[in-house]
């Protein structure tokens, strides 16, 4: 074995990754090679320096809880526990709301709310799919915009544009609170033939021009700015329907 050939082998030896004959062969080479012996010693000392230095990064305190919460939100409750699940959801929404009041998350959300990123888009589609689980579609069920609009008062720090478009073929079904990227957002639910459309509404500042659209797993979404609000309509209905609803809302 030449020193060149032993270069990687030395590390495999150090890591205990050689089989018995391989290790024996390398040890034989070591006996006659001071250069490799020195390298091995240096590498052993480097390894103990690394072990001593405790480089393993400690987990941020609240990260696990944050992730557990997000996982809970993206998994559906069992159907027969529908009522309890609904109450649990309401409780969770209340807690999230309390957190949301301080708006600590808002600056971060603004930076991340770029819907052109696939992660943000996927989250919006997922939130819509989640809402289709039994008992999740609406927190307030009413076709009356004068019931739905005041319901959001005090629950979100902005006024979502709530109007019924039953005559135009998009009946208002209700509203709910949802969570996107850690921020409480308003969601309006419209019907379209046999489909549901979620319209997410949340504040956004900065430049106003962006308009996005996309599709994921058969769900379409379009997103646009309306004053200081960003709206995002998601559904498995076709894109023309979404565009028509967008025109109605922004009219």
């Amino acid at each position: 074995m030449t020193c060149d050939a032993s270069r990687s082998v030395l590390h495999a030896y150090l890591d205990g990754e050689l089989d018995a004959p391989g290790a024996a062969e390398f040890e034989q080479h070591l006996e006659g090679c001071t250069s490799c012996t020195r390298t091995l010693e240096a590498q052993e000392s480097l390894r103990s320096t690394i072990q001593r230095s405790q480089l393993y990064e400690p987990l941020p305190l609240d990260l696990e809880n944050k992730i557990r919460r997000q996982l809970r939100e993206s998994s559906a409750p069992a159907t027969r526990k529908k009522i309890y699940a609904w109450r649990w959801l309401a409780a969770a929404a209340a807690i999230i709301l309390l957190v949301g009041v301080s708006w600590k998350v808002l600056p971060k959300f603004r930076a991340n709310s770029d819907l052109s990123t696939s992660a943000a888009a996927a989250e919006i589609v997922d939130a819509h799919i989640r809402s289709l689980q039994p008992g999740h579609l609406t927190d307030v069920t009413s076709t009356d915009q004068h019931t739905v609009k005041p319901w959001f008062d005090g629950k979100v720090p902005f006024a979502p544009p709530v109007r019924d478009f039953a005559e135009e073929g998009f009946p208002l079904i209700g509203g709910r609170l949802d969570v996107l990227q850690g921020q409480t957002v308003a969601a309006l639910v419209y019907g379209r033939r046999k489909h549901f459309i979620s319209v997410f509404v949340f504040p956004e500042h900065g430049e106003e021009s962006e308009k996005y659209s996309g599709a994921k797993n058969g769900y379409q979404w379009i997103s646009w700015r309306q004053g200081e609000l960003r709206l995002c309509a998601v559904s498995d209905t076709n894109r023309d329907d979404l565009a028509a609803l967008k025109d109605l809302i922004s009219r």
Partner: protein
Amino acid sequence: MDDSGQGKRTDVLLVQDREQFDRLVLPHLRAAFNLARWLLRSREDAEDVTQEALLRAFRFFSGFRGSDARAWLLQIVRNTCYTWMEKNRSMDSSVEFDESLHLSPLPGPEAQAVAGSERERLTKALEQLSPRSREVLVLRELEGCSYKEIATITSMPIGTVMSTLARGRERLQQLLTRPGTKEAVHDV
């Protein structure tokens, strides 16, 4: 919902899946965060990317058939990190990253004595390695992965794992023992 919609709902995970996920995957959260931190060289970025990776893992969980949940999760974390790096700082994720061009000298011995501990020097040195060398070293030295596990996580052949590890350790040694000298680098 119409019939086509019902079909789509089957990919929504149920509570039972989440319990499984909590039991099998969440115990490896520390490993996930550690790998992300070293790949991205930032705790804050690692926090965001770890969250994203865990949610992504959860979405793919129904496809997890293997027995090694740690390797499976770390694979997703790694891919999420590389996607993130491509989006945010294209330089770092380049496969062609040439350490000999990017090495900046560490502070000289006096400065080092003032600057502090062995741990800080080691951290700086590790952060100067290419992402490929860094991830292999972190998986081996901090995570205690076998070559086979590293090969699974990084989608590299075992031979490449071995040579990347050898090269990474040699560079690390150079950075630590010969601070400020660039000549030491070009012969490897």
